[in-house]
């Protein structure tokens, strides 16, 4: 790659974090640390607070207690537009593009913080990474397929060459093969490249395969955390996420 897509990472730390809506904590006392070169994944059942946790890290949901830090810098409750300037790229679970804007315009907004004359070359770099977007530059984002849309959503955050990627279920609604490619090539690739990746993933098995560390969230708390190879040995984890009745593949 001629131009770097993502940058060497910074450490993203949540310490004793509580966050939620209307002053009511959904996420409670969570500790997570994502480090450069690693993928840290968060798994857990629907409604366990995974998205709320990520949102509180990037300033979309208020932090009620505890701290968020990038490196040694405390960024607790920084506004989202401020967090973006610090090299954190966030892809939300839903509403991840600007539907009435064209693909090109979506990427341009992704590069909003770049110097004007760098935008075009960054778009080129992102297109090299996601060549399929090339043919649909003038199409409205709202008219893309699920997979194309996710590529655009990822492409949008890559515009700023983020050092920390915060991804909320990037593989949701994708065909299994596309999902696997996205996780194993692209997302793992960012970490191998030195970036910090914090990933929420419903498919526990797939998440473990590319992660260096995994946290299990239940009822807004971290109920289990560890390296994938240890979690794979944990009977409770296996029961509830990898094989048991309520499990998702």
């Amino acid at each position, binding site marked *: 790659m001629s131009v770097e897509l993502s940058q060497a990472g910074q450490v993203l730390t949540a310490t004793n974090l509580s966050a939620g809506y209307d002053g009511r904590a959904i996420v409670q006392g969570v500790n997570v640390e994502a480090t450069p070169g690693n993928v840290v994944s968060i798994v857990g059942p629907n409604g366990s607070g995974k998205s709320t946790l990520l949102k509180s890290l990037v300033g979309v949901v208020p932090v009620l207690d505890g701290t968020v830090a990038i490196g040694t810098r405390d960024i607790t409750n920084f506004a989202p537009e401020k967090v973006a300037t610090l090299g954190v790229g*966030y892809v939300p679970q839903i509403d991840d*593009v*600007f539907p*009435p804007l064209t693909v090109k*315009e979506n990427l341009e*907004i992704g590069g*909003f913080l770049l110097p004007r004359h760098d935008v075009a070359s960054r778009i080129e770099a992102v297109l090299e990474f996601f060549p399929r977007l090339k043919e649909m530059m003038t199409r409205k984002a709202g008219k893309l397929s699920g997979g194309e849309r996710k590529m655009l959503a990822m492409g*949008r955050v890559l515009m700023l060459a983020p050092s920390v990627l915060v991804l909320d279920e990037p593989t949701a609604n994708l065909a299994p093969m596309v999902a696997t490619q996205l996780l194993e090539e692209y997302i793992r690739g960012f970490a191998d490249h030195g970036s910090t990746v914090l990933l929420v993933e419903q498919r526990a098995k797939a998440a473990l395969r590319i992660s260096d560390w995994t946290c299990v969230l239940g009822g807004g708390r971290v109920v289990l955390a560890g390296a994938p190879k240890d979690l794979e040995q944990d009977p409770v984890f296996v029961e509830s996420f990898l094989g048991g009745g309520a499990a998702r593949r």
Partner: protein
Amino acid sequence: MSSFGFGLMTAAVLAIATVGFTMQFAVTNVLNLAYGSVMINSAFVAYYFNKHGMNAWITLIFGVILGAVVSWALNKFVFTPFQRRNLAPITVVIVALGVDLIGTFGLQAIVGGGYVSFSVSSGREFHILGMFLSGMQLIILAICAVVLTLVHWLLKYTRLGKAMRATSANPNLARNSGVKTQRVISTTWLISGALCGLAGTIFAMNTGVFEATSAQLYIVMLLAAMFLGGPGEPYGAMFGALTIGLATEISAAYISPQYKEVVAFVVLLGMLTFRPYGIFGSEKTN
């Protein structure tokens, strides 16, 4: 055919007004029912300068400035504080309605109840496409064409315009991309307010005689034109304005000019019933 000419003029003024109105709604989420009162206040400020000898076309600048400043201030000191309190969206609508009444009758208290008119030469008559248009009307049409082109250029090709559309489509994602949406919203009020002031002033010029309450029912025309084109769709607004402008003036020729707003209202009701997202709008719009 003369009603077609009138319709075209009404449409031109309405197009500028509706584009500003729909922009406010799309980007800032405020259905600013006080728009008509800002229009007429702008017209009176321009008229004040005209009365003291300034060329009417130059006074447009003062109408534009007043519209921009008042709209910006309304957002900053009235609408935003109410929005911050997380009340039901209807609260802001009711507040806007109150502002409209205060703006209109406050103006009336100052300028009195009588009719006034700009002193502006209407120039010689031109015979174009079967219509008789005065020089003044042609200038208004030209202003409209220029302004709508500028709006198109702003939204499509500038950084600010794209940020405005992104903020309208998905404010949280815009912020995550580094867009300072609060600043974008403030700027939107300035720009849409300028359009409002311009529309108000040429509305008054085009009408001939006007008074403090002349724009009181204009909101019906705005709503009809906006819903026709799809709420929050600037291009839809242009189309809606053309349709409503022509429909009201042509019907005025056959029924009675008094029922203009009624005709607009009937169109509005029809739209709300059958196509609530407008001809161009989609459900995604809001």
